[in-house]
């Protein structure tokens, strides 16, 4: 069976929680932990865990600071992170277009 490597999905980003985080950040310069928690609906522990993984992969940059004497965690996509989330959504769009066009010959590696 012919494999279409152009449709490889990014396993790190494809996880729903991380995909939500990256998608929110893609429309911003940066956002703090509270905003990400509000918009993604993730629990504090889940969000922390995902951000740690994304930071380890070089997709986000995390800055811990104090705002009005309270700790504040600020998160921004790196250039690589922006590139990869954009590419990932393009891949998903391609997959959707393929399924709508009924292409039986494309095998999608994940």
């Amino acid at each position, binding site marked *: 069976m012919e494999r279409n490597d152009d449709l490889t999905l990014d396993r790190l980003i494809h996880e729903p929680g991380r995909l939500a985080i990256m998608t929110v950040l893609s*429309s*911003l*310069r940066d956002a*703090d932990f509270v*905003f990400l928690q509000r918009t993604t609906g993730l629990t504090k522990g889940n969000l922390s865990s995902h951000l740690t993984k994304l930071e380890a992969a070089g997709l986000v940059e995390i800055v811990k600071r104090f705002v009005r004497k*309270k*700790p504040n*965690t600020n998160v921004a996509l790196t250039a690589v992170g922006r590139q990869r989330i954009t590419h990932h959504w393009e891949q998903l769009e391609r997959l959707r277009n393929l399924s709508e066009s009924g292409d039986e010959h494309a095998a999608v590696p994940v």
Partner: protein
Amino acid sequence: MQRANLERAAAHYSYLRGWFSVAGGLLFILAALANWEAGPFQHAWVFPLGVVGIGAACLPIARFYNEHYGRISVSTRQYVRGAITVAIGVAVMLGLSSLLRSQADWSLDLPVNAIAISFALIMLLSYAVGVGLRAHHVLIWATLLVVGAVPVWDGADPSNIGLVLAGVALMVSGVFDHRLFVRTFGPSRRLNLEDSGVGA
């Protein structure tokens, strides 16, 4: 997962913090009262004091949204888009007001409320571009547009009444925007917040 909703989260955050609109509407009303020199506003210092007071009131509003809903920095693209929208808005407001009704020779001098009309159009455009029009935006701002366009505003300059109407509309819109904000991001109960350990 709704991609569009996630990507629009920042726009919703920026446009729907309605308590700021309530403060803005109050400022419009204060400006009208100052122009009329009504009551205490006959004293020159009262209006600047009112402006400072409203500005001070924005600080706890900002703190409320920041602490319960987080902080964001918009992208350069959004910043430029916002600046262009404001610039166009100001130009439209000044130009349209002057065209519809002013002392200028080229004014059409129509019996309409130019302030109400131009501000309503700016707000409709701003919401349409920023977050998409909701039912309450259409209702409130179209009502202001219609009220301003009804040809009953002949006689004395109705600009101050326009400011009051625009201010009231802004305050009402702000209340509904804040309700939509809460529906979008959740009630303002404190989340189990910081000290996340991330990046430590």
